[in-house]
């Protein structure tokens, strides 16, 4: 980031940076530091005295069965949403990449869900699958399926997975389509002349060249499931039934709101912070690799 010439000015650059730095320090770094500090403290029941307890909050956290449940719910949720959203959008992008008539129209009709808030996606799917009056729930009952996301944990998890994947298809579709369109047509033509059928061309040429995009989308989708699906869960299932849809982020929110255990809540935040840092690092290593491609 070096320019040949630049402005002389001693105070001006600081003044220009001041608004952004002020907001980042006051609302990002100070609270993050407070969360780390609080995670080492233990407050007594009346909030009168606090004690520095090193890693006791973390020990308590990792001996709590409910925390392991939240970890496994988050993991299962991530895998299901990521697999569903990636495979469906890849299938659609491959079709849209063919120079079909009306390809532009399909693109427009597939990308708008990006603009839909996760909570709105959740409510749309809840309405279709509301056990007593939802149109699709009635259909399921007609076929003898005893469907009730309010009581059955598998049903609740399926419902939030459907809503989360539905919303993410548009984003993945756009990136897959861009990835497909950047593959040189000459490669595909050469393979066709050598007699490779479309399916073989896809798996031996297109798919490997698309893998950087797929890998990038994989990390983005995991981050999405971890953090952005909060709205879906909060509006649709409230983490229930019996914690079956309580993800790590929902648990931080819920435990903190109940109040009391400040240190434990802070420890949960710090664990999440470590997860984001790891995921972002993976994402950036990938971007650097891709630059050298």
């Amino acid at each position, binding site marked *: 980031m070096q320019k040949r010439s630049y402005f002389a000015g001693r105070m001006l650059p600081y003044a220009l940076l001041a608004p952004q730095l002020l907001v980042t320090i006051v*609302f990002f770094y100070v609270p993050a530091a407070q*969360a780390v500090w609080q995670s080492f403290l233990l407050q007594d029941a009346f909030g009168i005295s606090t004690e520095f307890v090193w890693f006791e909050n973390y020990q308590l956290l990792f001996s709590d069965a409910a925390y392991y449940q939240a970890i496994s719910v988050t993991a299962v949720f991530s895998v299901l949403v990521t697999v569903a959203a990636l495979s469906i959008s890849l299938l659609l992008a491959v079709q849209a990449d063919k120079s*079909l008539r009306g390809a532009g129209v399909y693109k427009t009709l597939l990308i708008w869900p*990006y603009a839909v808030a996760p909570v709105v996606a959740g409510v749309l799917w809840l309405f279709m699958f509301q056990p007593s009056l939802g149109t699709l729930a009635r259909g399921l009952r007609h076929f003898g399926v005893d469907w009730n996301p309010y009581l059955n944990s598998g049903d609740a998890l399926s419902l939030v997975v459907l809503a989360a994947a539905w919303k993410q298809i548009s984003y993945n579709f756009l990136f897959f389509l861009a990835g497909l369109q950047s593959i040189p047509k000459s490669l595909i033509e050469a393979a066709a002349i050598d007699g490779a059928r479309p399916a073989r061309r896809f798996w031996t040429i297109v798919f490997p060249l698309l893998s950087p995009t797929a890998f990038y989308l994989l990390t983005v989708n995991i981050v999405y499931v971890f953090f952005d699906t909060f709205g879906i869960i909060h509006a649709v299932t409230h983490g229930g039934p019996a914690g079956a849809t309580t993800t790590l982020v929902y648990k931080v*929110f819920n435990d903190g709101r109940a109040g009391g255990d400040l240190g434990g809540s802070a420890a949960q935040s710090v664990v999440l*912070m470590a997860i984001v840092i790891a995921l972002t690092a993976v994402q950036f290593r990938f971007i650097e690799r891709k630059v050298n491609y």
Partner: protein
Amino acid sequence: MVENRPLANLASHLILIVGVAIVAFPVYLALVASSSDPTTIANGQLGLLPEGHLFENYWKVLFEGTERSTKQPMIVPLFNSLVMALVISIGKISISLISAFAIIYFRFPFRHTAFWVIFLTLMLPVEVRIYPTYKIVADLGLLDTYAGLTIPLIASATATLLFRQFFMTVPDELLEASKIDGAGPWKFFKDTLLPLSMTSVAAMFVIQFIYGWNQYLWPLLITTRDDMQTIVIGIQKMLYVTDALTEWQLAMATTILAMLPPVVVVVAMQKLFVRGLTETEK
């Protein structure tokens, strides 16, 4: 197209049509529900064709409010969402433009540090610092205010990165020519740099408008008054009513209202949207 295979093309069209239908169906059903009356929905008799209560339901939601739950006419949360989305998007763009300008066009101590301080906020989404941030906003007396809804979300590593990237590609000759003409930093920024950045700014605006409009956790935490809520929070409040049935036809009308502005922005500015998305994420 390498070879022409009509049957394969037909299959592609079919797959895409099914995809579009799956993507659109939930919204279509919400639209049908928002034109229905409460008893039809409550009895589980909602069909697949619109009914005649569309205008009545939207009027009620917008200007009269629900009968149970919050009773808040949704025109107010809609306005709040608009304010929030505009302040966040314009705010993010403004402070990121001047930050990137400072980092690229000046030499000063701690230049790299400042860049990294902004950059690393990518790793601190609001979800990992919920309660400490809430406490700071509360201590500043900003609960239930527009300032509290927007200012804490206004820092933007992605926008700063994008504009920094873009300024790097602006030829040095432009700055040299401006300096020869005797232009100072402000004049160069306003008359040369800003006009060149307009496409990036517009692309960023689309992305950040949607981001601001769709915020959920943050307004949920810091607003308590019904008249300070945003529209996406309004939907959630409508779903959970104590000792009463959800007024689904109104909840679905609210849902449609909540998704309409960002969807219109994406569809109307599709080119800018795609550009903004692919430029910021890569």
